[in-house]
């Protein structure tokens, strides 16, 4: 039987690892900027004028329908709280993404080192699974909370905020947990193989 080689995949993993490394720092920068923005808006409500230069406001919670709120309807509404909340939500989301990227970095490092079936990889996949499952619940909650706040702040009538968990992401998270169990068994087999001469 031909022994499968990891060399080809090692090169690919190196490239992906590089991209993820860059992405990790970009997301970290964005998270830091988001925290600063949330604090900044809380401390200096007037700074909001810089963000909403034309004083209009638009939201698209589902990326399909975009609500445009005109300047006249928000002229007497303080939207600094909304922006503060938005940036806090973004920070939370970015922290979750950072965690997943860190796990991906760990996995790819082991793959580059030609140790794909390491116990650490099984653990990293498990942590990613848990965070993805948590994300499938937390992200819709954050979105619904945000939209609810916006709807109340602008007194928009005939709008109901519906909350549903993200089933696709939930299934993905469960599959990741299953994959982690497979990798755990793989790590056990690898250890057995390594201790056989």
């Amino acid at each position, binding site marked *: 039987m031909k022994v499968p080689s990891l060399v080809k995949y090692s090169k690919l993993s190196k490239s992906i690892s590089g991209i993820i490394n860059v992405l990790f720092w970009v997301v970290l920068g964005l998270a830091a900027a988001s925290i600063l923005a949330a604090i900044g808006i809380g401390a200096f409500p007037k700074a909001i004028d810089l963000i909403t230069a034309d004083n209009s406001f638009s939201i698209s919670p589902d990326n399909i329908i975009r609500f445009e709120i005109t300047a006249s309807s928000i002229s007497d509404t303080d939207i600094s709280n909304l922006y503060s909340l938005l940036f806090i939500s973004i920070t939370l989301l970015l922290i979750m993404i950072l965690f997943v990227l860190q796990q991906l970095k760990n996995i790819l490092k082991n793959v580059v080192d030609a140790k794909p079936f390491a116990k650490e990889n099984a653990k990293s996949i498990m942590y990613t699974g848990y965070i993805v499952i948590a994300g499938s619940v937390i992200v819709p909650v954050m979105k619904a909370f945000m939209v609810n706040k916006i709807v109340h702040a602008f007194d928009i009538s005939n709008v109901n905020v519906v909350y549903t968990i993200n089933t696709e992401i939930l299934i993905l998270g469960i599959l990741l947990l299953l994959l982690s169990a497979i990798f755990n068994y793989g790590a056990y087999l690898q250890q*057995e193989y390594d*201790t*056989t*001469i």
Partner: protein
Amino acid sequence: MAIIIRLDRVLADRKMQLNELADSVGISIVNLSNLKTGKVKAIRFSTLNEICKVLKCTPGDILEYEYMENESSQEED
């Protein structure tokens, strides 16, 4: 484990160094050293075959079984 590796004894009889055996058998000295000190879980027939061929001995000369009273049939990690 009740299986004892007698590789050092056979090597001494043949006046052979571990690295010489490693070169002849074609496995790393680290693995062979692990075998000598009983750190490995299993040995392949092919490896045992090569060791016996080089040392001109039988598996019984290298491996020895010693009865132990309180030993489970399947050792856990």
